[in-house]
């Protein structure tokens, strides 16, 4: 299921872009994907890419070719958040790891046994055991640091512990029976352990110290190297966290009810290790709260979310966002759950912050009136695609796409004198699993025509409803033979030719009210059956009408390429 399908937009620094659409159009998913809360299947998110680089990227992508591909990759690696390092395991690595672990355990188990069996001398045993533990630790450390293990500061430590366990536990279990008496086991443990290692006891003791050291050391070196080569990913993620932020819709649920305001606002600082000094943290928290309009800050720091009103909670969310000093904020319906008289305050705050802190906003909303007053640019989404994009004035005052036009016409005004003619679309938006072919909007579009991608199934549905309504009698059976042909069998009593006469008549009469009929290109009788042939439509692309304003609709733009066959 494609929630978002080929969406492209750009936001310039300091701009406010509003993505509007109804529920299920994919706007929230887009917003979350920017913040990497949702994984992107395909596509790139470029951050702070200079104009020329981007244009270079576009031209090279359209030209193709292997060297161009390498160059586009380089640009992507530098600027895109979706660049994923290839961290999958391959067979060679898997075999190495397995081999390493196997060797480690054999050495951990076998070598001491061998030593104990062949050599009785305490010194030789100790040396062997020492060597065995060292080797074991080394192997575990190396094997555990290969991709796709995450690069983390804790990995060397954990591998060290694993090394000790491996070196100790299994021989212990193998050598003696598990102590039967639990309470008295603690006294015996040491005795059991020394009994296992016997004369090589001191060597083993030293080995316990060296094994984790070896494991940790090997791991650190390997991870360090990996960090240098793949580190861009980690650095980018950290950058992402600091400079992009998301404000959620629900002020009640987005704050942890068990955390005080102080803890909520200081969490981003603590987690990203931006400030360590308690005074510094306190100062930053106080500053953020004041910037978010919660003055004086001291009054709010020890309060809990349930003691605050909805507007105050949303301000706490904003303060927590500001603590990181981000550049870009995605706001997902930030005011839709607040009382109307408070909404403006929060919006004004956000616009003030835009001035004060040089923020750029991506607003996601279903409320077109809000987009009208807030946005510099608006992008209208429907079923996962952007259908129209442009400056706020253009999109709201002169909408080009039929969906946008209908949407704007039904938005109510608080002024009862402004009653516009409402284009209320019939039906509801289709499920995301059943996205219509061609233009996604065509089944509900009041002005759809033949290029919009009607499928034979849809036309057959329409003919069936005409038949049940009695307008088009004479159909005995009907089926969609292929995506652009409908085959009919007539009832006994009429001939295919006579039926075609009525058919042409009916179609001409009802073409404007039942848009699916517009897709009919021709009708023929053959072999006692009637075949209705359809126009082949295509999906409209976003075409730039004027600089900065794009629309995806066949009515507005001539098809960029010849219509191709519909996907089956």
């Amino acid at each position: 299921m494609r929630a978002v399908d080929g969406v492209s937009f750009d936001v310039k620094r300091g701009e406010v872009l509003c993505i509007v659409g109804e529920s299920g159009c994919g706007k929230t998913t887009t917003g979350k994907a920017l913040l990497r809360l949702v994984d992107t299947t395909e596509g790139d998110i470029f951050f702070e890419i200079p104009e020329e680089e981007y244009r270079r990227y576009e031209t090279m992508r359209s030209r193709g070719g292997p060297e161009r591909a390498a160059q586009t990759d380089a640009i992507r690696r530098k600027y895109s958040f979706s660049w994923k390092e290839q961290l999958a395991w391959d067979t060679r690595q898997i075999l190495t790891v397995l081999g390493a672990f196997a060797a480690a355990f054999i050495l951990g188990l076998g070598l001491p046994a061998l030593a104990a069996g062949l050599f009785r001398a305490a010194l030789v045993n100790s040396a062997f055991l020492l060597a065995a533990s060292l080797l074991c630790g080394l192997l575990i450390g190396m094997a555990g640091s290969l991709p796709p293990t995450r690069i983390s500061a804790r990995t060397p430590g954990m591998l060290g512990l694993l090394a000790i366990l491996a070196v100790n536990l299994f021989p212990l279990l193998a050598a003696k029976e598990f102590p039967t008496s639990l309470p008295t086991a603690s006294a015996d443990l040491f005795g059991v352990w020394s009994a296992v290692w016997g004369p090589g006891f001191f060597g083993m003791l030293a080995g316990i110290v060296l094994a984790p050291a070896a494991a940790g050391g090997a791991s650190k070196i390997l991870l360090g190297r990996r960090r240098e080569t793949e580190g861009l990913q980690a650095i980018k993620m950290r950058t992402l966290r600091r400079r992009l932020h998301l404000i959620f819709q629900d002020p009640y649920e987005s704050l942890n009810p068990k955390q005080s305001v102080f803890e909520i606002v200081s969490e981003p600082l603590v987690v990203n290790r931006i400030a360590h000094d308690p005074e510094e943290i306190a100062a930053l928290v106080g500053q953020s709260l004041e910037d978010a309009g919660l003055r004086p800050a001291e009054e709010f720091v020890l309060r809990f979310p349930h003691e605050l009103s909805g507007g105050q909670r949303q301000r706490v969310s904003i303060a927590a966002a500001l603590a990181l000093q981000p550049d870009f904020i995605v706001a997902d319906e930030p005011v839709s759950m607040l009382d109307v008289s408070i909404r403006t305050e929060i919006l004004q705050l956000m616009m003030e912050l835009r001035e004060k802190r040089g923020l750029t906003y991506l607003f996601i909303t279903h409320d077109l009136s809000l987009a009208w007053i807030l946005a510099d640019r608006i992008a209208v989404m429907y079923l996962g695609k952007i259908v129209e994009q442009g400056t706020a004035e253009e999109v709201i005052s002169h909408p080009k796409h039929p969906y946008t036009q209908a949407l704007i016409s039904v938005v109510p005004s608080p002024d009862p004198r402004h009653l516009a003619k409402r284009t209320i679309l019939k039906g509801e938006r289709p499920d995301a699993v059943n996205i219509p072919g061609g233009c996604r909007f065509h089944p509900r579009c009041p002005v759809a025509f033949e290029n919009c991608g009607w499928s034979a199934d849809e036309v057959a549905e329409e003919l069936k409803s005409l038949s049940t309504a009695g307008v088009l009698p004479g159909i005995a059976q009907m089926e969609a033979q292929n995506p652009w042909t409908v085959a009919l069998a007539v009832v006994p009593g009429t001939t295919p030719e006579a039926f075609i006469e009525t058919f042409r008549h009916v179609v001409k009469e009802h073409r404007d009210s039942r848009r699916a009929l517009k897709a009919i290109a021709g009708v023929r009788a053959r072999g006692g059956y009637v075949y209705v042939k359809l126009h082949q439509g295509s999906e409209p692309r976003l075409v730039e009408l004027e600089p900065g304003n794009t629309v995806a609709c066949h009515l507005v733009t001539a098809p960029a390429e010849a219509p191709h066959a519909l996907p089956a």
Partner: protein
Amino acid sequence: MLLEVKDLVIEYTTQSGTVHAVDGVSFNLDEGEALGLAGESGCGKTTTALALMRLLPYNGRIVSGSILFRGRDLVKVSDTRIRKIRWKDISIIFQGAMNSLNPVRNIGQQIAEPIVLHEAVEEQEAMRRVGELLELVGINRERMRDYPHEFSGGMRQRVMIAMALACNPKLVIADEPVTALDVMIQAQILELLERLRKELHLSMILISHDLSVMAETCEKVAIMYGGKMMEIGTTVDVFTDAKHPYTQGLVAAFPDIRGPRTMPASIPGDVPSLINPPTGCVFHPRCKFAFDRCTTAEPALAEVTPGRQAACFLYPEVPEVVLRTETVAAR
């Protein structure tokens, strides 16, 4: 006059104290009229609606006032009587009800339930009526045996409307009927309600915080705040020439897609606590026109221009509220 509410006072007893949810609210409704009850969260509009059908929760009670429905005071009628009136004369579409449909029964059964309970009809007859109702609200009657989860939000709201109309009531109360829906579905449902109102000669009380919705559907509108009625008048009048400062602020707070591209106004401060409401006029802490009298005395709802009532001392005709006497407390 179909409905006359006078000086209704409703309280809730909670752990934190007594909540004065509705404090002296009065309004009228004519036959075939659509009244919009507007206000923000916590202003008492839902409580008023529930009280009209005596459906307050266990810790709420009607302290005083009267609800005259066709001349009969609903506050004083017996429990048996009110059960007969519920659904048959007045029905309600609850807030968020589309999510409260019973998931294990099909919608046909759920719509038929009130029919069977109120009128002694056989199941076949009831199901026939259900089919008619479904057609009326624009659902294919063959979907009668489908379950709620097979419908979308908008369709479920239509089911709720069908349920509310099951026993041919005279008055339908719709509590936030379109709040959770997309703007296109919202338009569909509002259009449906309009059509039904005209076809069936219904009277309607539409409760919403969204003034824009009210502007399109209601003839008369009543603005509530802090449990009190602030202003009543025709929609056009109230929106274009609001008399009460709160109404002015509220109307100005809604962005207008057909207006200029300016940031709407806001009303500073927060909604008042209903446990410890402010003395005097409940709006005075946030009102920019407040003066001395507003802090000590409470303005009563009175007519300031023909057809318009407001509760604000800015208008000399408005008297102060006198203490009310307690009447029979009912739920």
